[in-house]
């Protein structure tokens, strides 16, 4: 069981985390953040294996991963 915490106000919606996630559970939210980007969010969090690829790839260091 792993957990990803997304700082949605830091996210600029570049979608790079959605490409590298091996479980394909990182998606872009339909809502907006204060910067008017669609931030990343996680669906089916129980599938997360804590590989931290999303956090490694995030250019804005907006993710924290717990395992």
């Amino acid at each position, binding site marked *: 069981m792993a*957990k990803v915490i997304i700082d949605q106000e830091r996210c600029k919606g570049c979608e790079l985390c959605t490409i590298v996630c091996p479980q394909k559970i990182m998606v872009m939210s339909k809502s907006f953040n204060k910067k008017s980007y669609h931030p990343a969010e996680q669906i089916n969090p129980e599938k997360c294996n804590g590989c931290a690829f999303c956090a*490694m*790839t995030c*250019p*804005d*260091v907006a*993710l*924290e*991963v717990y*395992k």
Partner: protein
Amino acid sequence: MMKKVFARPKSLTEVPFTYCPGCHHGIIHRLIAEVMDELNIAQDTIGIAPVGCSVFAYLFFNCDMIVAAHGRAPAVATGIKRVKPNNIVFTYQGDGDLASIGTAEIVHAANRSEKITVIFVNNAIYGMTGGQMAPTSLEGQVTQTSPYGRDPKTMGMPIRMCELLSTLNSPAYIARVALTKPAYIIRAKKAIKKGFQYQIDGKGFSLIEVLSTCPTNWGLSPKEANEWLEKKMIPYYPLAEFKNVEEVS
């Protein structure tokens, strides 16, 4: 009880990056900060920011920073390192800064094997000024100042700085890395760590060239920019260690 396996490094401030979505500058900043954390050198480190998108790097790093005139970061770093030899000095430069206006400074700093670490961000274009052709722009690449594509007949071929500098005898470590895949990012961090370690050990000059995307000025989405980098840039700018003083007998 869950363990934190990934968090913001302490050597980064809380200030949000000013870079465009998908720009690799943020990843490179994070890797440098993680290396500073791991080697526990942030309190002794002096960074030199360039002119370019990363001119605001002093806002993001939790260490002492100076901004040098365009291209002159290696000259400023030389001065600082010679006056304060016990401090760790690194420069952070783009391709317009290092490979164009600052060519003289980087070549001679490398040739003197100044004990500094240079992080060279190559995105094949001028970012901050609005997407003009850089010395590192690829053959046929369309930019603001090469609207018909870069023509090698009149504009020359792109400069490969790592290969150029590795013809010199003195540098201790020269490598080129990319960041488009997690595996590349892990390798990039190892290379940056080695660069800083060589400086700490007094082995001499180290330069790590990082291939980076510029989605805004390339006119691509961050995802397409990553693909373009892998398809177009890596074949021309091969990822390798060009010089490693450890491996030379």
